[in-house]
């Protein structure tokens, strides 16, 4: 197995772990009844989920560079005519 493939499989496993972690963190029962306002105006439950959105972007951004499927590294040569 090439080094690229080894890194891919390792990073893919990390990706899945982080994905599941994000799914778990999404359910913020610790802020469920918390009505505090952060910076005086932002409900803490809303602010937390805005951070979840940012975290999702970071996760999938990281995955698209470090867990990128090796078969997609080279673009397919064939650009078949429309339709099959």
């Amino acid at each position: 197995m090439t080094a690229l493939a080894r890194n891919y499989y390792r990073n893919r496993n990390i990706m899945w772990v982080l994905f599941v972690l994000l799914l778990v963190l999404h359910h913020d029962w610790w802020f469920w009844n918390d009505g505090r306002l952060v910076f005086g105006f932002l409900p803490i439950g809303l602010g937390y989920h805005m951070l979840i959105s940012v975290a999702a972007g970071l996760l999938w951004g990281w995955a698209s560079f470090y867990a990128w499927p090796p078969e997609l590294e080279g673009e397919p040569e064939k650009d078949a005519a429309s339709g099959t």
Partner: protein
Amino acid sequence: MFALVMISLYLLALLLIGRWAHVGYSRHTASDYYVASRSLGPFMLVMSIFGTTMTSFALVGSTGEAWREGIGVYGLMASWSGIIHSACFFLIGVKLWHFGKLYGYNTQVQYFRDRLQSPTFGLLLFVVVVSLVIPYIIINILAAGETIQILTKGALPSLFPGTAGAVPQALGSAVICFVVFVYVFGGGARSTAWANVMQTLSFMVLGLIALVVIAINLGGPVAASQQVAELRPDLLVRGAAAGHEARISHLEFLSYVFVPLSVAMFPHLFQNWMTAKSAKAFRVTVMLHPVFIMLVWAPCILLGIWASSAMVDGQLVVPLGWKDPNKVLGMMVDRLTPPFFAGVLAVGVVASTLALDTQFLVLATMFSHDIVMHYFGRERFDDQKQILLGRVFVVVIAVIAYLLSAFAPRSVFTLGVWCFTGFSSLFPLVFASLYWKRLTKLGAFTSVLTALAVWLYFFQEANWGLSRDYRFHGLMPVVPTVLASALALVVVSLLTKPPAAEVVGRFFPKDA
């Protein structure tokens, strides 16, 4: 009147952009008409996909729901969508693009016919997908017309006395259908991509501007939120607070994760994916899509909760006992922004209703490719005939969609969530087709038929969609529908003959 002028200018700009995209960039080939010659780079792709996934709910609906239900709406819809949409783009969209480029697919039906070696399955999928898209189109047409009617009140009293001077909904819907039809007819995928860029920029920027202007007029964001904390603290949490019951149960909050799985099988999104120049063009999309959702939804959620307690001259902006959440954003803009701003915001709101373009195009693409060219023989149609065929179907679909919307009952809006449920129930199929070599034709058939049966069962249990709060043991009905579809797929696939090695080899290349 200013709103009417701004909306008119925006629609004119859409026509011009569509024309420019067609004249300036089109290669006048069928590939260009249907999938923009698979040439869109990262920026166009992320804007186009985001514009396609955001609907009229993104601005108007989210504000109204937050006014009614509080901050939980963001976690329920926006942050779940951020995680799951990008997951679908990365895990499913890129792979489908790869096969589309390799084997020349323009539609999902073409892919599944080839993957499962079953023209009949393609026909079944065609019927199911088209049936799910049509209500979606009708809702968008109606929402666009209603939005224009609300925003143009008082503009032309002598012309439209029956609607207090507002452009009537039927006329507004007709104008929207016409504008969208013109630029889709002319430039196909390339025009819709550029139109989506304009739409996305419009509702992102204008939503943020609305937040800032309204916050200033409420005495600043701190004052606005403190007012909510005093008068409606229940909207700041999801659980029970200040004598109010919990807004949402933990189980229901969790079960919403299944709703955004629907994007994996949106046919119009599939066609968007096919327009990408390269697999790497998806990188910007997967990274920025959740952030874009946040930039659109977070301001709307804040505006919604502020609307519950905002006061002008000692009177609530949204009166106690107000019933229609869809008018809340308009009321806030009307009372808390300069007179001309309502016109500016009107553009953003109308922009958010214009996902119609990709829906018109995808139906035209599906009818031309999956029915006409498939059954009459693709070899009969050269490039120009393929484009002509697509354009004919754009005309037919625009007219039929408008007529259906003209006669659709009010209750069609309740179908919106059920359409998402239907698409989500097809997620196991597309995921398995890309990651499970053992998927069989019969497993796929059973999965779709099971999804259909379970969907119909819950739909009628929910009084044909009229019971907005229907839950299955506390869960959204999408949960058992997806699980039943997945179970049927796995069990029947394992019990039936595996697919041919040659077919598997085409879709599962050997490991490096």
